[in-house]
């Protein structure tokens, strides 16, 4: 038997014993094996190796494995609506982006309603805070900035006689001075009159 034939067949013996050879190659392997003792012996040793592994003792799953796994799966669901929401990153990102854009527009509208000087002062205040990276990752600083902005806007709106568009829910100016809340300052009246 030519050694080259043996080499070619030998490399494919594993596929032959697993029934993974195409019809033609399987027939060629069978006819070679019928006449080659060395390759037949190698095939037998490969089969013995597989059989030895197959005969290894099997382990049983631990008691209540399925119940424990199902409980762990349920716990994934019960981790709260926020986590469930964040499991879908695209819609979550879209909602968060829409929320941020809405707030930017609301902020811009409020700023737009302010006098030029006040607008510049507030913009300067916000930008000088936000350019500091520590502010962006510090929720306390961001909250303080928002609170300061709201107070500042509130003050400006009231001083300008534009209480109707004051961004406050529970206006500090109104609480501190309820009698004057509806009053329109003289300079604002003058402005209105001029306009």
């Amino acid at each position: 038997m030519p050694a080259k034939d043996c080499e070619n067949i030998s490399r494919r013996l594993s596929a032959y014993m697993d029934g993974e050879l195409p019809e033609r190659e399987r027939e060629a392997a069978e006819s070679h094996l019928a006449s080659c003792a060395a390759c037949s012996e190698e095939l037998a040793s490969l089969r013995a190796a597989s059989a030895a592994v197959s005969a290894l003792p099997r382990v049983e799953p631990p008691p209540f494995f399925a119940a424990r796994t199902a409980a762990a799966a349920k716990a994934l669901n019960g981790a709260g609506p926020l986590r469930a929401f964040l499991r879908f990153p695209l819609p979550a990102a879209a909602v968060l982006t829409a929320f941020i854009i809405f707030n930017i527009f609301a902020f811009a509208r409020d700023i737009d309603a302010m006098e030029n000087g006040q607008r510049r002062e507030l913009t300067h205040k916000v930008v000088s805070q936000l350019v500091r990276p520590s502010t962006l990752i510090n929720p306390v600083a961001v909250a303080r900035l928002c609170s300061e902005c709201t107070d500042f806007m509130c003050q400006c709106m009231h001083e300008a006689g534009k209480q109707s568009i004051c961004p406050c829910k529970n206006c500090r100016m109104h609480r501190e001075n309820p009698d004057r809340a509806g009053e329109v300052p003289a300079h604002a009246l003058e402005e209105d009159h001029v306009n």
Partner: protein
Amino acid sequence: MTDGKNGLPEDFDLLTEFNSGDGGAFTRIVEKHSGRLINFLFRYTLDRGEAEDLAQEAFLRLYKAAPGLTPGAKLSTILFKFAYNLAVDQARRNTNRSSLAGASSLDSPEAAGAADPAPGPDAAYEAARRSEEIAGALAGLPDTQRGALLLKVFEDRSYAEIAEIMALSVPAVESLLFRARQTLAKKLK
């Protein structure tokens, strides 16, 4: 619908039931596949506790992925793919694998003698010694060869399925299986 082998519902039906909100279907999926999965992972990782943890993690991944799976998906192949990837990651973290080789208490002569006294203590001891020798030889194979061989011998998977689970080509799987069997045959002579 049931499959012919063990009377358990087919994966297709279980997946459909699970995706239509039947929480019990997931428990049945775990019951159906846990034994085979843990055996595969145990022989791959050589550590029973680790095998059980990885099996649970693989089922949880399947749980998360299930709503996106099509009814035609082969659940057990996907499950083994998750498990294999987890085991590969775990193996990368383990540096003392060689110290575990052949040290499985399941294959030790003492354990086998206690578990199966019927053939007589000498025969049981001899069988267990042989099991330990085979387990040691198997553990000594490179990870990819051992993974492919376990999927073929324990699971009787086709080369195409093994290739899918291990993210390899079919010729690569064929080569791995041939080398694994050849090495084992030499060691067990």
